[in-house]
C-alpha cells in the first residue's frame, strides 16, 4: 500500500474544484495554481520512479482485502509501465499549463479552461493507474468528456464542428468498450485485469474471445485514432487551442488509447497469433497512410495531427511485431527489443509532438494564421520558436543525435532481427517521407521571404511560451540518454518485463 498513488488522481481533481470556486474571486489564481498542481504531480511521479525502482506497488481503494485470493475492491497499480506514463502526463501537462498562462489570456472564461485541464489530467492519471477494467472506463470518460469541451473551447464554427465529430465517434467508442466490459464480466465474473488473466489462462472459447478482443480493439482504436478509425483526429487536434492540441496529441491518445491497448493485450488476454498479426497490420497501415495524408496538408496543425497518426503507427507496429514473436515463442530477446523500441518511441513522440504543437501555437499567436503559405521568414523575427521547432522537426524525422532517431533505429533493428524485412523497409520509407514533410514546414514557415500581408514586424512570443518550448527541446536531446545501457536497464527493461513476463503483473495483485 503506497499512499502516494491516489494523490496522483486526487490532487488534480481537487485542483479543478478549487479553481472553479476561487477563480471567481481571484482573477489570476487559476493561472498559477494549475501550474502549481502540475508541478506537484511532476514531483510525486518522479519521486515514485526514483523510489520504487522495478517494483510494482498497489493501492487498494477503501482498504478492501482480497477474499480467497479473489480481489473484490478497486486496485490502483503503479508498475514500471504506468509510472513512465504518469511522468509523461505530468511533465507535458506542466509545460502546456505554463504555456497557457500567456496563450489562453486572449480567450474568455479562463477558469473554465484551467478546471477542465485539471480534470483531463486527473482522468488520464486514473486510466493509467487503474488495475480494474470498469474503473478504466470511468476515468477514460472523465478525460475524454473534458477534452470534448476543450476542443470546442474557441466556440467558433470549426471548433464546434470538430467537437461534434469527436463526440459522436468518441461516444461510439465508449459504447463498444462498455459492451466488451459487459461480455468480459459475463464470462469471467470479475473486473480485475490480473484476475481476468487467470480465468482466461484456465481456458476460453475462441469465438467469444476473438469477439471481445475485436470490440476492445475497435473501441480503444477509435480513441487512439489508428487508421480506419482516424476521421476525428485531424479536425479535433487542429481546432483545439494549441496547449490542448499538444496535450491531446502528445498524451491523451497515448494514455487512453495506446496504453490501454498494450496493457489489455499483454496483461489481460493470452496473446494469440491472429490478433498480433491484426495489430501489426493496423500499425503498418496507420504509419503509411498517415504520412501520405500529412504531406499534402497546408494547414500547419492538420499536418502535425496527421503525423501523430503516422508516428503512433510506429508504436503499434513494433509492439505488434513483439506480440507475433511472443505468440510464436521464438527469440524472446528480439521481442523484448521490439516492445522496448515501441514504448521508447511513445515516450519520445509525447515530447517532440507536444513541442511541435506548442511551436505551431506560437506562430499562430503572432501571425493569427495556420496556413503555411501565408508564413515565411520567421527565423529572424522568432529565433527561439525557430530553433525549438527545428529540433522537434529533426527529432520526429529521425535525425541523430535527437531522441526520435534512436527509437526508430531500435524499431528497425528489431524488425530486421525478427526477419520482418518488409516492415523495416516501410519504417525507413515513412521516416524519409516524414523528413520531407517537415523540411516543407521549416522552409515555408521560417525561411524564404516573408509573406506580404503580415501586419508590422513580428516579435518573439512571451516568456512562459518560450520557456515551455525550450524545456521540451532540451528533453528532446536528453531522452536520447535512455538508449544508454545503464539508463535503459532502470527504465525500459523492467517495463518490458512487466508486459512480457506473464506472472509478474498478476503476482503483485493476487497475493
Amino acid at each position: 500500500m503506497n499512499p502516494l498513488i491516489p494523490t496522483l488522481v486526487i490532487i488534480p481533481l481537487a485542483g479543478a474544484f478549487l479553481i472553479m470556486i476561487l477563480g471567481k474571486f481571484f482573477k489570476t489564481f487559476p493561472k498559477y495554481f494549475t501550474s502549481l498542481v502540475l508541478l506537484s504531480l511532476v514531483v510525486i511521479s518522479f519521486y515514485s520512479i526514483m523510489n520504487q525502482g522495478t517494483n510494482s506497488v498497489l493501492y487498494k481503494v477503501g482498504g478492501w482485502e482480497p477474499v480467497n485470493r479473489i480481489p473484490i475492491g478497486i486496485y490502483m497499480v503503479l508498475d514500471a509501465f504506468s509510472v513512465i506514463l504518469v511522468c509523461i502526463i505530468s511533465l507535458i501537462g506542466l509545460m502546456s499549463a505554463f504555456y497557457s498562462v500567456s496563450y489562453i489570456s486572449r480567450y474568455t472564461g479562463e477558469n473554465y479552461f484551467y478546471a477542465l485541464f485539471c480534470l483531463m489530467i486527473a482522468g488520464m492519471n486514473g486510466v493509467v493507474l487503474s488495475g480494474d477494467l470498469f474503473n478504466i472506463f470511468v476515468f477514460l470518460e472523465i478525460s475524454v468528456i473534458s477534452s470534448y469541451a476543450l476542443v470546442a473551447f474557441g466556440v467558433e464554427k470549426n471548433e464546434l464542428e470538430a467537437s461534434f465529430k469527436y463526440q459522436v465517434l468518441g461516444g461510439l467508442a465508449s459504447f463498444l468498450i462498455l459492451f466488451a466490459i459487459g461480455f468480459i464480466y459475463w464470462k469471467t465474473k470479475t473486473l480485475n485485469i490480473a484476475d481476468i488473466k487467470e480465468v482466461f489462462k484456465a481456458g476460453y472459447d475462441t469465438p467469444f474471445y476473438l469477439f471481445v478482443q475485436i470490440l476492445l480493439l475497435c473501441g480503444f482504436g477509435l480513441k487512439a485514432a489508428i487508421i480506419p478509425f482516424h476521421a476525428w483526429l485531424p479536425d479535433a487536434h487542429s481546432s483545439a487551442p494549441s496547449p490542448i492540441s499538444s496535450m491531446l496529441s502528445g498524451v491523451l491518445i497515448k494514455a487512453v488509447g495506446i496504453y490501454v491497448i498494450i496493457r489489455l493485450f499483454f496483461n489481460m488476454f493470452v496473446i494469440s497469433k491472429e490478433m498480433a498479426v491484426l495489430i501489426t497490420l493496423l500499425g503498418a497501415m496507420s504509419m503509411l497512410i498517415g504520412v501520405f495524408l500529412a504531406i499534402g496538408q497546408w494547414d500547419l496543425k492538420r499536418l502535425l495531427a496527421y503525423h501523430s497518426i503516422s508516428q503512433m503507427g510506429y508504436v503499434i507496429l513494433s509492439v505488434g511485431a513483439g506480440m507475433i514473436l511472443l505468440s510464436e515463442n521464438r527469440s524472446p530477446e528480439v521481442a523484448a527489443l521490439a516492445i522496448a523500441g515501441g514504448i521508447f518511441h511513445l515516450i519520445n513522440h509525447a515530447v517532440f509532438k507536444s513541442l511541435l504543437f506548442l511551436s505551431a501555437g506560437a506562430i499562430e499567436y503572432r501571425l493569427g494564421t495556420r496556413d503555411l503559405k501565408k508564413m515565411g521568414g520567421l527565423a529572424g523575427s522568432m529565433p527561439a520558436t525557430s530553433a525549438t521547432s527545428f529540433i522537434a522537426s529533426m527529432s520526429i524525422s529521425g535525425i541523430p543525435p535527437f531522441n526520435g532517431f534512436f527509437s526508430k533505429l531500435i524499431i528497425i533493428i528489431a524488425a530486421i532481427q525478427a526477419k520482418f524485412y518488409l516492415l523495416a523497409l516501410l519504417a525507413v520509407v515513412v521516416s524519409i517521407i516524414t523528413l520531407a514533410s517537415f523540411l516543407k514546414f521549416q522552409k515555408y514557415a521560417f525561411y524564404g521571404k516573408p509573406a506580404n500581408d503580415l501586419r508590422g514586424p513580428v516579435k518573439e512570443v512571451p516568456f512562459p511560451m518560450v520557456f515551455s518550448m525550450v524545456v521540451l527541446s532540451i528533453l528532446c536531446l536528453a531522452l536520447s540518454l535512455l538508449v544508454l545501457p545503464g539508463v535503459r536497464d532502470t527504465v525500459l527493461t523492467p517495463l518490458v518485463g512487466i508486459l512480457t513476463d506473464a506472472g509478474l503483473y498478476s503476482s503483485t495483485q493476487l497475493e
Partner: protein
Amino acid sequence: MITYLMCFILFLVGLYGLITQRNLIKIAISMSIMEFSTFLFFALIGYKEGGVAPIVNPAEPDQVYVDPLPQALVLTAIVIGLATTAMLMAVIIRLYRKYKTFDIREINNLRG
C-alpha cells in the same frame, strides 16, 4: 435468449440512426438509444431466473440472488451517459446558433 436479441436489435437501431440521420438532434437521440441498449445488456447479465434483490436472509439459505455488481456499474454508466448527452446537446445548440441549421450536410467547414 430473446431479450438478449432484442437488446442487440436496439443497439443496431441506434447505429442505423447514427449512420443515416442528417439532423443533429436525431443523431444525439440515436446515440442515446445505443447507450441504453448497452445499459439493458448490463442489467441482463446480472439477472438470474427467480432471483431476488441481494439482501441476505439467514432464514432462507437456498434463496437465489441476482448479481448486484452490474447494477452498480449501470448506475455509474448512466451518470456518465448523462454527462456525454448534456455535452453533445450543448455543442448542438452552439452549432445551431452559428449555422442556423440542424442539417449535418450544411455543416462542413472541415475537410481532408
